[in-house]
C-alpha cells in the first residue's frame, strides 16, 4: 500500500485539528465526540467531550478543574504506550511543558505525524523531559516564534528574585504565576536554589498545587496569608495568579514588589504593560533556538506551525529548505495565555 500523506487525514476544522481515520480531535475548542488532550491548560483541555484520551496526570488535572464527570468517558494512556484509536495508532510522548503534557504521535497509512502540543526543551523538575521522535509531519507550536525570544537560564532568573528579596527585606515579594505549571515549577526551582521559607499561595493556586504534591512533586512548605498581620509578611514570598497581581487582595501585603514570571517578560514593553516591577523570564515554551532545534531533532519532512507567531518560524524553516506552512486553528490565534 502506498503511503498516505498526512494532509489527507489530518484536517483543520472549526473545533480544531481533526484526525479522520481515528475520528478524534486534538485539543478541540468545542465539545466533540472524541478528544485527545495534550495537556491541562484551559485553552487546550475543555469540559464536555464524549470521550477523552489523555495522560493520567492530565486526566487528574482536568478532574480537579472540571470535576470527575467532565466527559462521558475518560481513557488514560501512559507515555510511550501505543493505543489503537480507529485505524490510527496513537502514542503520547512527554512534551516537557507541564506535568502530564504530551505530544500526540499518530501512525497511519505508513506515515507518522506528531502534534507537539505546547512544549519546551529545558529541564523542568515538575515534569518529564520532551522526547524527540523522528516523524514525517511535525505540528509545532510557535508561542515564542521570533528571534527576539531566547530565554535566559532559570537559575539566573531565580537568582534575580532572591537578590531583590535580599535588597528589600522590609517588603513582600508578590509573583504573578499561572496556576497550572508555572506556580509549581517556580516553587521547585526556588527549593533547588536553597530557599527554605514557607511560600505563601493565593487561594486560586492551592488546588492544583495540592494535586502536584499528591502526584509526587516536592514543593516544600506552603502557607496562606489568611489572617496574617501585614508585619508578619515582611520579606515573605507570595505567589498569585497574574490577574490578582494588582487586585485589592494585595493591599494586605507590606508594600509588595510586584514580579511576574512568564516568557513574555523578555520584552520590556510587555513587562511594563503587566505592571511588573520585577519581570522574571521563566517560560514553559520553547524559545526561538529551541523551536528550530526541535524541527531538526525530529527530522520532519514537513512542518505545520500553529499557536503563536507562525509567520517568522515558517519563514525561517523555508529558508532552511524545510517544507513548512502556517496552520490556523480556530480560537488559537494570538493566544497569549499561559506561557
Amino acid at each position: 500500500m502506498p503511503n498516505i500523506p498526512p494532509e489527507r487525514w489530518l484536517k483543520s476544522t472549526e473545533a480544531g485539528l481533526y484526525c479522520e481515520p481515528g475520528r478524534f480531535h486534538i485539543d478541540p475548542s468545542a465539545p466533540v465526540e472524541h478528544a485527545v488532550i495534550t495537556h491541562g491548560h484551559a485553552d487546550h483541555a475543555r469540559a464536555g467531550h464524549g470521550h477523552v484520551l489523555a495522560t493520567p496526570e492530565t486526566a487528574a488535572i482536568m478532574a480537579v478543574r472540571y470535576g470527575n464527570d467532565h466527559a462521558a468517558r475518560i481513557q488514560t494512556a501512559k507515555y510511550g504506550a501505543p493505543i489503537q484509536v480507529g485505524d490510527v495508532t496513537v502514542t503520547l510522548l512527554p512534551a516537557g511543558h507541564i506535568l502530564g503534557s504530551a505530544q500526540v504521535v499518530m501512525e497511519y497509512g505508513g506515515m507518522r505525524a506528531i502534534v507537539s502540543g505546547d512544549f519546551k526543551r529545558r529541564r523542568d523538575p515538575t515534569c518529564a523531559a520532551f522526547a524527540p521522535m523522528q516523524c514525517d509531519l511535525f505540528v509545532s507550536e510557535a508561542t515564542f516564534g521570533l528571534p527576539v525570544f531566547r530565554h535566559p537560564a532559570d537559575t539566573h532568573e531565580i537568582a534575580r528574585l532572591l537578590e531583590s528579596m535580599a535588597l528589600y527585606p522590609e517588603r513582600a515579594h508578590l509573583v504573578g504565576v499561572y496556576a497550572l505549571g508555572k506556580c509549581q515549577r517556580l516553587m521547585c526551582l526556588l527549593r533547588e536554589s536553597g530557599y527554605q521559607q514557607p511560600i505563601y499561595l493565593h487561594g486560586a493556586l492551592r488546588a492544583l498545587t495540592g494535586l502536584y504534591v499528591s502526584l509526587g512533586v516536592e514543593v516544600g512548605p506552603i502557607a496562606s496569608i489568611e489572617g496574617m498581620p501585614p508585619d508578619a509578611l515582611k520579606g515573605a514570598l507570595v505567589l498569585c495568579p497574574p490577574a490578582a497581581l494588582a487586585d485589592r487582595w494585595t493591599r494586605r501585603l507590606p508594600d509588595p514588589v510586584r514580579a511576574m514570571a512568564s516568557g513574555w517578560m523578555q520584552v520590556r514593553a510587555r513587562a511594563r504593560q503587566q505592571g511588573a516591577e520585577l519581570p522574571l523570564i521563566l517560560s514553559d515554551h520553547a524559545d526561538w533556538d529551541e523551536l528550530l532545534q526541535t524541527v531538526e531533532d525530529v527530522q520532519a519532512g514537513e512542518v505545520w506551525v500553529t499557536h503563536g507567531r507562525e509567520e517568522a518560524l515558517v519563514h525561517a524553516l523555508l529558508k532552511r529548505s524545510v517544507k513548512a506552512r502556517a496552520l490556523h486553528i480556530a480560537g488559537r490565534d494570538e493566544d497569549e495565555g499561559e506561557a
Partner: protein
Amino acid sequence: MQRFGELLDSLVFQPARNEKLRLIVHYLKTAPDPDRGYALAALTGALDLPNAKPAVLRALGAAQTDEVLFALSYDYVGDLAEALALVWRGHEAGPAPTLSEVVTGLEGAAVKDVSDLITRWLNRMDATGRWALLKLITGELRVGVSARLAKTALAQFGAVALDEIEQLWHGREPPYADLFLWLTKQAARPHPLNLAFRPFMLAHPLEESEIALLPAADFRAEWKWDGIRVQLVAENGQGRIYSRGGEEISKAFPDILAAMNFSAVLDGELLVVEKPAAGNELAEVASFNKLQQRLNRKTVTPKMLEQNPAHVRLYDLLDDNGEDLRPFPFDERRARLEAWLEAHPNPRFDLSPLIPFQDWDELAAIRARARSEAIEGLMLKRGDSLYTGGRVKGPWYKWKRDPLTIDAVVMYAQRGHGKRSSFYSDYTFGCWRDGENGPELVPVGKAYSGFTDAELKQLDKWVRDHTKNRFGPVREVEIGLVMEVAFDAVQRSNRHKSGVAMRFPRIKRLRWDKPAAEADRLETLQAMIVD
C-alpha cells in the same frame, strides 16, 4: 556599560520616584570615574553622541537574522534598540566596553567605522548591556528620569542642596570631573562659569487664614503672570535663557536672545504677545495656547516668530553689569530694575507693574476683579526680601486666583501605578451635550488628584461596583457619580473630541449627592474659554 545597563533596566521598571532616586544615587556611589559622569550626562540628556542612523541599526539586525525576521521582530517589540539587542547572536571573547570607552569611541570614530565599532561592542555584552548601548546610540533613554531628577540624585550623592548643583551645572561638560571631585570632597567647590544660572527664588502658596497675620505695609504686590518663569543671563554679547529647573531654552526663543544685548541677569515671565510693549503701555498678552506652540522646539520657523512673538515681563534684576544684586532688599532691586529698563528700552521687554494697595481687603477685591487669562493670581513680596534661591517660607507668597470649577460625570476609571496599582485612581469625566438620541456625555478631561486616601478607597469601591465594561486596564462605569472638578483654565483643542482642553484639572469635591443629569453641560465649559 554593563552596570549602566543594569541601572537603566531597573529604572525602567521602577515606578516610584524615591526608588528611582535611590537607584541612581547607589550607582553614582559605586560606579568609577569617569563612567558615572557620562552616565549622569546620559540621564540629564546632556550626552550628545554622534547618532548611528536607524538604517545602520536595521542593517545590523538584518545581518544577525535576515531582513524579514528582523522586520517581524522590530514590529513585535516596537523599539529598535530593544529588538536589535534581543536578536543579536554575535559573540566574541573580550571585556565588555566601559561607558567611557563607548562615549569616547563614538566621538572619535569616522562614520564608516561606526557600524564595525558597534558590532564589536555588541558581541561582548549580554542583552541588557546591548540594550543600554543601543538606547544611548539612538539617543532616547525613556527610563522615566527627568534631568531634574538626575540632578537631585547628584545632590543627594554629594549631600548638597539641589540649588548648588543647578547653579554650577550650566556650561559644564561631561564627565563633570570638577563636580565629582567637589562632591567627593577631593577638591573645593568649583566656581560658576560665565553665563551661569542662578537658582530662582520661589514663593509659597498663601493660606487665606495666614493673611491677617501678615503686615500689609511690609509687602509689595504684583500680578502673577501666566507664562513660563525665565532667567535671562547676558554678558558681552552672549546670552542664555533658562527655565525654572535651570534648563537652557535659548534655542526656542531666538527673538528674545537677539534682544539680549546687555550685561545683566534678569528674572521675568516669558509670554507670547499680540502687541509689543510701547511707551508705558504693557504688551498685550496672547493665550497660553500660543506660548505652548513655542515651547520645546529645537528650531523655530520665521512664520512662528511672526505669529507668536515672545516677550519677557520683568520681575527682578539679579545682576547688573557684574554687580550681584541678590544680597540687596527687594525695594532696592526694584528701583534698580526700573532704572535699568529705562536705560535699556526694548519692545520685547516690559515691567511687571506693582499694584498699589492699602490693606488686604483692598487687595482681595483687586484680585477678585482680575479677569484676564494672562493673570494667574497675585505675588506678594516683602519689601526687605533678599533674593535667595529656593522656596523659603516667609519672604514671598503666591496668592492664586480661585480656580474655575465644573460638575462633571465620571465615565471611565483606570488603575494607578506603584502604590496605587490596586486602586482605580485615574478618572475620565465628561459633560453633557445634545447627541442624536438625546443628551450624551462627552469626555472633557482626566484627573487623578485632589482626594484623600479614604475617598480613594470609596471611589475604588464605587468603580468596581458600577463597572459597565472593561477595556484592558480601563473600566467604563455607569453614569451616576458627579465630581466637582477644579482647573486653572480651559482652551480650545483640536485633539480632543469635546473640542476643549482643561489645564491642571483636579478633583475638588465628590458630589455623591448630586444626580448625574444635573452635572454641567459642555457649553458651560466652552463659555469659560477666553481667546
